[in-house]
């Protein structure tokens, strides 16, 4: 550190004792509190159907797919971009992996590794087009979404059914009452949380998301990091597709339809910003859990499916609006 003597004092330094300031209102904390509130409320209203281990287990096992996608999406949004092709990617990789093991007769591990490599390549393609060719991320991934979905339908038709037991054993296995896909999601979350919060390398994404120009001028290689984040996202989406195919013993070609928006919604609820630079992996998980919880309580309280859509939409806008009001800056 260079020795720099204090500059001549021309401005008074604020030496007055500081007021104890409340921690800044963050969407993660707000959402976690709201989640607890809903759990409490519905535990009282529905002590038998809602407050049961079976129900929570059912919530968990069904959020794993979107949860895995949301982890990758959080990384993307921290870096200030997003990827609309993840749902189609999950479908495509599920179908490719399923096709390789069922129709081509490849050994299961080899089929999985190949699927993940194809996913990484597809993600890299997205990243290359966005970072090097400089096509807007929305357009790029909207385009590749169509491509991946098309490939999934080409290879799989409606889907590859009755996948080999040696593959499905894994997705349906339970450890301590928790299904394997949930464990995969948690393991991935721990790794991602560590990377994003504690490694220097992934820290750079916060800078890129906050101000890409300043990041570039601070010596951060924005292009390379962007390509990498798309590659990681693609691989994670492929993993989600494989894990889900293993769970339901079927590689459905349309499994991921709409999942990209679910993941983005959850991640935004969990504290990310569409303009980048914000968010944590825990926030993504809370967002996913909150969405799954909302759907569950709507099923439990027998709200019709039309109203479910209306309520979920309103909750999303409300949650982000409250956050925006809380954080409104001085004009």
């Amino acid at each position, binding site marked *: 550190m260079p020795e720099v003597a204090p500059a001549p004092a021309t401005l008074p330094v604020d030496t007055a004792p500081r007021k104890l300031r409340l921690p800044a*209102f963050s969407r993660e904390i707000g959402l976690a*509190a*709201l989640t607890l*509130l*809903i759990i409490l*409320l*519905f535990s*009282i*209203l*529905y*002590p*038998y*159907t*809602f407050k*049961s281990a*079976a*129900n929570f*287990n*059912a*919530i968990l*096992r*069904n959020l794993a*797919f979107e949860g895995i996608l949301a982890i990758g999406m959080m990384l993307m949004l921290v870096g200030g971009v997003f990827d609309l092709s993840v749902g189609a990617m999950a479908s495509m990789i599920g179908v490719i992996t399923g096709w390789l093991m069922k129709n081509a007769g490849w050994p299961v591990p080899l089929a999985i590794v190949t699927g993940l490599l194809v996913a990484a390549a597809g993600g890299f393609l997205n990243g290359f087009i966005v970072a090097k060719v400089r096509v807007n991320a929305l357009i790029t991934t909207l385009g590749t979404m169509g491509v991946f979905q098309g490939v999934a339908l080409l290879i799989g*038709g*409606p*889907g590859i*059914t*009755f996948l080999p037991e040696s593959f*499905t054993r894994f997705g*349906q296995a339970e450890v301590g009452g928790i299904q394997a896909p949930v464990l995969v999601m948690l393991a991935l979350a721990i790794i991602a949380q560590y990377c994003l919060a504690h490694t220097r390398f992934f820290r750079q994404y916060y800078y890129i998301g906050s101000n890409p120009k300043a990041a570039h001028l601070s010596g951060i290689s924005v292009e390379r990091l962007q390509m990498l984040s798309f590659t990681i996202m693609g691989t994670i989406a492929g993993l989600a597709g494989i894990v*889900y195919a293993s*769970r*339901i*013993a*079927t590689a*459905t070609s*349309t*499994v991921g*339809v*709409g*999942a990209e928006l679910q993941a983005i919604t959850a991640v935004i609820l969990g504290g990310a910003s569409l303009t980048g630079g914000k968010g944590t992996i825990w926030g993504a998980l809370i967002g996913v859990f909150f969405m799954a919880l909302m*759907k*569950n*309580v709507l*099923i*439990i*309280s*027998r*709200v*019709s*499916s*039309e109203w479910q*859509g209306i309520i979920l939409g309103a909750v999303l806008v409300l949650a982000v609006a*409250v956050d925006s*009001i*809380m954080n*409104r*800056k*001085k*004009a």
Partner: protein
Amino acid sequence: MTKKVNRRQAIRAGALAGAGAGLALAGCEKAPQQTGESRQPGERSSFANEEYVWVSANSNLPLFTAHDHPALRLAGEELGVKVQIAGPNSIDIPGLVAAIEQTAARKPAGMMVVGWDPSALVPPINHAVENGVPVVCVDADVPASKRLAFIGTDWYDLGIRQAEAMVKGLAGKRGKIALLGLIEQTIDQQAFAGFRSVAEKAGLTVLEPQQDKGNQAEAARVAAAILQAHPDLAGMAGFDSESGPGMGQAIREAGKAGKIIATCVDAEEQHLRLVRDGVLTAAVGQKRELFTYVGVKALFEALHSKVRFTSDDKAAGVIPIPVNYNTGTYTVTRENIALFLKSA
């Protein structure tokens, strides 16, 4: 801050709104009672807490709301039990899986599942059955699962009924018959086989089935092409719900109404009008109402039937209901159309 919102106020308002909404959505629930043995059949009120849930993807499809849902409610009223509709309102397989599992988790008395995917729904159905929730498949089957029974149309039989209507319509004439449908679907293939078994005996030539993608516009396009390619075509039969309207459009545009004998599956308003106008010769309707009506009753019987096979049927794994319910079909022609049309 230009407009300062008091944070505590906002949180309080939110909490109140949430609580209010929650209370409005539901009252407090009662503890689930053990179903079966202890209660007397015939005492309607004793089953009032039993809940039977119908779960499907695309759960608000007009076909469902017109036939399956009202019959579901009717069965519930007759038995004095609760009925419920669940599932995503798009064709969303993960959403359907989640709905099955989360519905099973709240331990209803029984579940009816529409088998949108014969493979992907196996794990959630088995999971529910293994955890003591009886499941039957309705409308479409998941034969590889541990569902107790399937209630729906026998499509081979449906093919036979269409062929019979066709033979009757041709009145002894012979010639080429074209088939349309979702050709990759098992049920359509069964129907094609049933159709052939009758038509070929009657000396008709059945052409290779054509794909219409379950889409009216596509069905119209394919039907028009067939009419072009086979000027001597005697008849045409459609096997998904959109085939009939599509064929009707093509036949009308080709000016061949009445000259081609056309039959189709389903008897919705659109199909019926085409029969009334003489564009279609016959429509073979599925008794959709019976899917859910019989579904609820079968689940109810599975719990409450007095028929005994062993000293302990539950332990022996014997279930006191049939495995297959063919709900059958009805055939609409110009002779009986008046009885089917809502407004003459």
